[in-house]
């Protein structure tokens, strides 16, 4: 859609001509997004094109651009590392500025004594982790891996990861933040608001953190977060990670005060009992069900191939038929990765002893092949840095997560059989990667208390094959029905699918959820902070009266 050149020039004056573009090919590079083909007409890989891409270098520039957008009625979609289909503009013919924050890439401070770091949006987890480890500190790296923005996960999305078990979600770890509202105001939250520094997240007044993010965050739908402080945690490992070996399966030496295990369970009941016991006994540093992303049937074959730099996926096919590897696959069918870290040798010995007792009590066991030095060192590298997370896409470049409803271990155990059965059913089309019905993976815990977590079913499809795309969409729709059939709300697939829905369809769906007053409250927040409605619908709201209309129907 044609927009006033005045608006373009006004933004150009703020950021400089080299940091704004409306070249169609450049715009396409932002419109092209993972998952787009699952929600866009004609299976297009493109989300709606932004009207222009703009790269501000400072909070002041973000504010200036935002004010121009308000003046001209242009929507704003900020991104940091820019991944997921919801990172793009939501609607065609709805002029939207893509605010690419990659120039705001500094670590502003690491407060070693008070254990927090202040970062800009384009600082990724791996960068900050590398710096704070030198000080004996660590960060929670989210499940999507260390290439992701800390500001994005802390301020605008869920923020759970393998370290959340011991460190909490990044939504919990968020301290002070700086927020440019869609109206162009700069709001500093928590202790920042009273000039006391970045150490506390709450306030001013009622929790502004709650307003800006909630459990899932606004995903770029309610203004731009330009800085945040993130809590740092204790790290008793190496000051600098020195991986060894050729790519891709780098290995990290396991210090004497660490243990790296893959724990197997004979059944889901034992898995849950083991989980509870580990949690109750307070052992462990990293707790994640990681390797199963390849599917329980193929995980052993894939990872034992992956760590050999001379092998390729062709070798996985061979390995999957090897009886010795099939045995490992069975041992690891219901498994998870656990890393113990001791502050002393006494501590690690005690944790080891406690773990052995838990395993004896629950019938769980260490998956021997995965605990051998090569796999254990690879696991250590993988889990500490989460630098291989895009192995999510290893089979064919497309993956979509279904399920992932979060709850207690018992709650998750109850839906897992349905999730497995449904995925087995949908794989029979041969249009999804046939990796067994159980490709569920997820964090051991997504908050620091209670063992609340979820498991996501990793569904791999070929984005270059329309039939495979269609099969994935069908699986998403099936998964919603499956979930409802066992009394569980729709999972992550519904979140993905909604990106392709019209506003009206979303509002109809929202109008059916319980506790409508929440959406009414969010609408008031929207009105207050985004009076010209320049943010997108990833911050959920509902027009006044829409719920009543739905009730009347």
């Amino acid at each position, binding site marked *: 859609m044609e927009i006033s050149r005045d608006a373009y020039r006004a933004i150009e004056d703020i950021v400089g001509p*080299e940091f704004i573009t409306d070249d169609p090919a*450049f715009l396409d590079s932002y419109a092209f997004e993972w998952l787009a083909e699952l929600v866009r007409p004609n299976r297009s890989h493109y989300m709606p094109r932004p009207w222009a891409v703009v790269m501000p270098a400072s909070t002041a520039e973000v504010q200036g651009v935002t004010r121009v957008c308000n003046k001209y009625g242009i929507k704003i979609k900020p991104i940091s590392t820019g991944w997921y289909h919801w990172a793009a503009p939501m609607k065609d013919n709805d002029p939207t500025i893509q605010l690419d924050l990659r120039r705001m890439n500094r670590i502003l401070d690491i407060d070693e004594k008070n254990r927090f770091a202040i970062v800009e949006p384009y600082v990724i987890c791996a960068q900050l982790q590398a710096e704070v480890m030198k000080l004996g500190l660590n960060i929670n790296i989210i499940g999507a891996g260390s290439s992701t923005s800390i500001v994005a996960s802390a301020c605008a999305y869920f923020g759970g990861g393998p370290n959340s078990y011991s460190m909490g979600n990044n939504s919990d770890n968020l301290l002070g933040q700086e927020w440019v509202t869609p109206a162009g105001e700069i709001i500093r939250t928590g202790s920042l608001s009273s000039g006391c520094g970045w150490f506390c997240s709450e306030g001013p007044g009622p929790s502004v953190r709650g307003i800006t993010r909630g459990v899932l965050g606004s995903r770029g739908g309610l203004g731009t977060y330009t800085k945040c402080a993130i809590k740092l945690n204790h790290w008793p490992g190496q000051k600098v990670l020195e991986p060894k070996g050729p790519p891709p399966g780098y290995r990290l030496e396991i210090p004497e005060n660490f243990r790296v295990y893959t724990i197997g369970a004979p059944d889901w009941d034992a898995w849950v009992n083991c989980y509870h016991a580990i949690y109750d006994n307070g052992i462990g540093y990293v707790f994640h069900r990681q390797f199963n992303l390849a599917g329980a049937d193929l995980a052993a074959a894939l990872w034992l191939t992956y760590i050999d730099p*001379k092998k390729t996926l062709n070798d996985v096919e061979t390995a999957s038929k090897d009886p010795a590897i099939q045995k490992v696959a069975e041992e690891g069918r219901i498994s998870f990765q656990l890393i113990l870290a001791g502050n002393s040798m006494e501590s690690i010995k005690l944790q080891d002893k406690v773990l052995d007792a838990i395993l004896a009590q629950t019938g769980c066991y260490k998956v021997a092949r995965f605990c051998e030095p090569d796999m254990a060192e690879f696991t250590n590298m993988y889990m500490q840095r989460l630098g291989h997370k895009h192995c999510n896409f290893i089979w064919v470049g497309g993956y979509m997560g279904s399920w992932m409803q979060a709850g207690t271990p018992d709650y998750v155990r109850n839906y897992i059989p349905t999730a497995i059965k449904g995925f087995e059913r949908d794989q029979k089309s041969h249009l999804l990667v046939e990796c067994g019905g159980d490709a569920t993976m997820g964090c051991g815990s997504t908050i620091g208390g209670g063992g609340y977590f979820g498991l996501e079913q990793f569904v791999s499809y*070929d984005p270059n094959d329309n039939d495979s795309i269609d099969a994935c969409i069908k699986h998403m729709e099936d998964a919603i029905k499956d979930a409802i059939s066992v009394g569980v709300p729709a999972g992550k697939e519904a979140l993905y699918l909604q990106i392709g829905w019209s506003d009206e369809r979303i509002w109809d769906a929202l109008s059916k959820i319980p506790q409508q007053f929440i959406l009414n409250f969010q609408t008031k927040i929207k009105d207050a902070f985004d009076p010209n409605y320049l943010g997108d619908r990833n911050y959920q709201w509902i027009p006044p009266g829409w719920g009543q209309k739905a009730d009347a129907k």
Partner: protein
Amino acid sequence: MALETYRADAMRCSRCAYCKWVPLDLMKSWRFSKGCPSIEFGHFHSYSAGGRLVTALSLMDGRSEVTEKVKDSVFKCNLCGSCDVTCKMCRYDMEPLEAMKELRFHLVEQGHTLPQVEPVIDGLRRELNMLGKPRAERGDWAAKLNVKNLVKEQAEFVFHAGCRYSFDGDLGDAARTSVRILQQAGVDFGIMGEAENCCGGRAYGMGYKAEFETRRDSTLIAWQRAGVKTVITPCSDCYHTFKRLYPPASGCDIKVVHMVEFLDQLLGEGKLKFTKPVPMTVTYHDPCHLGRQGEEYVAWNGKEKKIFGQAVCYDPPRPRYNGAFGIYDPPRRVLQAIPGLKLVEMERNREAAWCCGAGGGAREAYPEFSNWTASERIEEACSTGAEAIVSACPWCERNFLDATAGGKRKLAVYDVMQLVEKAL
């Protein structure tokens, strides 16, 4: 190959943006965490491997056209291959570096060339070298060395100095030292002298595939006439061209050896000993074309097949170039064998090395970008406390010399051969 060959790569790109960083496992600091010079300089996503895949797709589908900005994003890249290494951390079905080269061929074939590159290519066509120097002077560096001229004689080995060592007097005696070592080792070798051709590799990188093929064919014919079985070169650009770009040509079965490999072999066999100490702390810069792009060529003519329903693999298995088996250790062993010399490592090394900035035609087309890329590497070298940065490629050395000119950073620049010469 046509651009369409890489459609699947584009469609299957997950936009993870790994291509912008060093492999995440290897990240040791904020300062030296970036892998791709192009995106750091150009900023927009189009300046990354992932972005260029989308550009290719967008052009193929007629969603956009080649503009000056598109040309800038396609060509303002060193083709260093850092993206290729990081992409393949998690993927077996992507070839981003090859796709980016193909995109260049596509643009050049359609006439979308860079005016600043045209004189360089004209020089190549006219004088058969990338520096536009008179071809008659190409063999002057070897005067008085008493080397066989393979235009007139036969030998199993040919020493190929390359354009830069043949004409750039600032780079010292690397070529002459190489020749002396070959002579002392009793190798039956010669040079093509005035008749030496540019290998064509840099033209290939600039998108001029036809010019590359002309140079390749001419070189191979000359070598065949001279009975050459093995080429030895101190230039990593030429090394990569001979090793990886020549073999697809029919009848090419030339063995390719870099001088550092030859030295390493002599040291290993006890046929070479360094006698003079070189008391110096140095850091080694892995040339992209010797390191991550220096892996052995494996012929492949296969097709995609699906296993487990939809997982992609290839029939027969496709060779995997991900930097795992580049030439990293031989130059280090040579340097470590020099008495008194201390070798320290930069954070980004081996397959994760930051580029010198000279490749992909960037030096010729975008001097500011090229110089900035080199300056970044100089900063990294200085952070190690080294007195000198050492490489095994004259193009790297030239770019580093230019980046350190003016004395802002006091860091010496050497070729491995120059230090070897000091130690002999």
